[in-house]
């Protein structure tokens, strides 16, 4: 270790423009630390940085660099973290000598760009804050943007619902979602933009909010840490509101009470932080100012909880399907293996209006290749999937269509015009109908129905091919593929309990790879504004696994 210490000391001392101010030393955690000064040509003076080098160096510790350069005097500059650490955005190298060179070059680049040129970050960075537990438990509140402009110092109640509890590092966490904002007379001001399921289903609690407009900040990027620092942001009316609330809620003394603190951030967005108060023990005191009693915050530190803006654009910020699909109203007919995977994929990819229909019951043996869970036991597929999907995305509304609808409207007197009209009328409300039922009778009836966009998906035995019809006359095309073109081996199908429920053989992996390929293809075509054509996804397992998509 001594050898490593002197090696690092030597390598750094040889770097151009770098001099060692405090020699490097080794602590009990095998960390090496010291102080250097770094000079670039454009600046008259050198800048000083504390350096810490962890034992992993030149490799990373988890996902962070094992070297840090720090100086709290530089907090006002771009790309400096709350503890004064400089974000140097460096690159990987396994050899110590090279890595030291790379990292110091990155540091010099930071000095030039953010210290000398004073560049500001183009993206907004949230206030620096460290959430802390309230009575040893963490609290989180998830919110969305709202269609409402809060006035400065507007305050009132907000309604929230609990979602699942969890563990946050070494402590428990209680998670909540913000439902709506109400004025002091408890009238709803505006609702968060969650799905109807979330708006309707969950139980409610009350919290308090105040909108400051300006961020509650000190040293430009740190959130205030003491209640007395909040005083300049509020007025006497808010103090009266707090006083009255606490007086009227003595029965709940000791309970936690979240206070959302809102402010504007760039792009006209609002961000909310949450401070956790204890009923009966609000950090306020009464004082007499100019002959009148009023409230003011006490000199106590604030317990900040966790908040996240979970609006649609953030929730799906990392990727989604194209808007032509996500903004469509979609019906999925048949939610077995293929249908449930399609449904889950659409919802995970940003769709918000998905209806499902199936008459079938989920059995334990369905779980292995669909989006169902063992723990839900035996139940209607529709109800389990609905539940699965609405807990996946807070923006999706899933309606279950009457399971008898298709039976009644297609198979009785399939040639009668009035029945067909009835069916068409019902399906007109959908932009896309995805039929995963593998029901040839249904396909036949749909053959000359006018449906906005009808997509039929099915898989041949052992998932050798996926057959997808997207054009008119889907019955003729699909039947021709199955009967004349593809070699669908029906001798070797899975008959679990006799011949009454045969099904094709394939695993979750077999099916999912084809379904995802098909959805990706459809999404790509729509994104490129190319017309959709029927297609077959062919697989080949002779030399490893290959997929080929043939368009018709």
């Amino acid at each position, binding site marked *: 270790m001594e050898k490593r210490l002197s090696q690092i000391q030597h390598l750094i001392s040889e770097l151009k423009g770098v001099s060692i101010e405090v020699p490097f030393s080794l602590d009990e955690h095998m960390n090496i630390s010291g102080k250097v000064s770094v000079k670039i040509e454009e600046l008259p003076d050198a800048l000083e940085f504390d350096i810490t080098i962890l034992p992993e160096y030149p490799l990373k510790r988890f996902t962070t660099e094992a070297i840090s350069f720090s100086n709290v005097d530089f907090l006002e500059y771009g790309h400096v973290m709350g503890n004064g650490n400089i974000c140097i955005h460096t690159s990987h190298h396994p050899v110590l000598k090279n890595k030291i060179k790379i990292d110091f070059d990155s540091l010099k680049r930071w000095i030039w760009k953010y210290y000398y040129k004073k560049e500001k970050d183009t993206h907004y960075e949230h206030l620096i804050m460290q959430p802390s537990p309230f009575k040893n438990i963490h609290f989180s509140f998830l919110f969305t943007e709202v269609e409402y402009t809060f006035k400065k110092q507007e305050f009132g109640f907000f309604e929230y619902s609990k979602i699942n509890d969890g563990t946050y590092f070494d402590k428990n966490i209680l998670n909540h979602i913000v439902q709506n904002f109400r004025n002091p007379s408890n009238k709803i001001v505006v609702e968060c933009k969650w799905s109807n399921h979330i708006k309707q289903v969950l139980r409610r609690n009350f919290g308090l909010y105040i909108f400051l407009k300006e961020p509650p900040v000190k040293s430009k990027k740190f959130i205030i840490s003491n209640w007395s620092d909040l005083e300049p942001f509020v007025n006497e009316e808010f103090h009266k509101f707090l006083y009255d609330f606490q007086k009227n809620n003595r029965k709940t003394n000791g309970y936690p009470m979240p206070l959302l603190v809102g402010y504007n951030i760039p792009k006209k967005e609002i961000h909310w932080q949450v401070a956790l108060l204890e009923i009966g023990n609000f950090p306020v005191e009464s004082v007499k100012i100019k002959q009148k009693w009023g409230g003011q915050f006490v000199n106590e530190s604030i317990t900040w909880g966790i908040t996240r803006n979970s609006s649609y654009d953030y929730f799906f910020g990392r990727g989604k399907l194209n808007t032509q699909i996500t903004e469509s109203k979609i019906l999925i007919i048949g939610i077995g293996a293929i249908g449930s995977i399609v449904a889950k994929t659409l919802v995970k990819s940003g769709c918000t209006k998905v209806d499902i229909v199936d008459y079938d019951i989920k059995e334990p043996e369905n779980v292995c290749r669909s989006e169902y869970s063992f723990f839900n036991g035996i139940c209607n597929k529709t109800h389990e999937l609905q539940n699965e999907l609405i807990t996946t995305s807070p923006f999706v509304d899933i309606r279950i269509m009457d399971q008898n609808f298709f039976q009644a409207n297609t198979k009785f007197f399939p040639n009668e015009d009035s029945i067909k009209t009835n069916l068409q009328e019902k399906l007109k409300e959908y932009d896309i109908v995805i039929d995963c039922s593998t029901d040839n009778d249904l396909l036949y009836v749909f053959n000359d129905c006018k449906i906005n966009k009808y997509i039929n998906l099915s898989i041949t035995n052992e998932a050798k091919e996926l057959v997808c019809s997207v*054009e*008119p*006359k889907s019955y*003729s095309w699909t039947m021709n593929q199955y009967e*004349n*073109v593809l070699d669908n081996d029906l001798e070797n199908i899975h008959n679990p309990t006799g011949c009454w429920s045969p099904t094709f053989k394939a695993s979750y992996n077999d099916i999912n790879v084809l379904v995802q390929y098909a959805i990706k293809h459809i999404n790509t075509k729509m994104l490129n504004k*190319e017309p959709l*054509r029927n297609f077959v996804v062919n697989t080949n397992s002779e030399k490893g696994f290959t997929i080929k998509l*043939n368009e*018709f």
Partner: protein
Amino acid sequence: MDKNKHLESVIKTHQIAKEEQLLNKHRDKSKDVKESLEKEYGSNIYSPFNSGSYAKNTAINTKFDFDMIAPFKKNAFGSNGTLKDMYNNVYDFLYEKYKDEANVIKQKVSIGIEFFRDEEGDIVKIDVVPGRELNQDKYPDDENLNLYVYYKYGNYDAGSERIKTNVKAQINNIKDRATNEKDSIRKIIRLLKVWKGTKLNYPTKSFLLELITIKAFDNNDITGSLWDKLEAVMEYIRDEVTKENFTLKDPGNSSNDLIDTLTTSERQNFSNDMDNIINRIEDNDENIKTYFPENEKFIEEDNDDTYGDKGAGLFSIPPKNERFG
């Protein structure tokens, strides 16, 4: 799978004569429309005439394409009347006249009269294309007409553009070729129309399919079986239609280029579709059935042509008891 036998059956089952009743209904309605136009516009209109596939001998029985050209005099809508005035005036007249028995719709250059389904379940559709002679009283000599473009198609902008053409020359050109080369040009045109019928709102006009087929035959030595010819035409379309300098001259006005009725991406899709058809049929003959489907209504199965037996000789003992009334 015998591709040629199948294609012959496609053509046979799509023969327009097989839908005699529907054909007659189209003829009757067409006559009715013609007479009402003549009655309404009197001396301001020349004799309306049919210009669709039926007139060109390239029709198929799943889509009749009854187009009626209504040639107006230059001053029919006042000496300052515009093409738009003409189009709207004809629309207003047809709408008032047929609103109780048909949907009257403004289309690209025509006005569609789609009669409501009759007791036998048939739907008759006549497209009226109003056109105006270029100079007063010159139509009988030059047969040239200006058409109004109601909404954008291909590279023609809505309203702003006028199409000048000689419809009679268009018809005669195609009719002559289709009739004289009925085993090649006519059959291929009909097959391509059958294919187009499998698509929803395909942007390629029938007229374009006719011209491009003729051009393919003019530019290549296309011989062999029916499938060979069809494949060669499809290859021609695939290879040529995306080329920047590709043109399809309107036989009615050589300065009109029919390829302009398609956008660049529509041309690319047209080419891709031809490529897909060729490749998929090469993968498996059976795919020909869904690209070029027979008209199921008129498929004649083999045993309709002869008295049949169950394959075990002809000797029978009649059933024991049988009741007649």
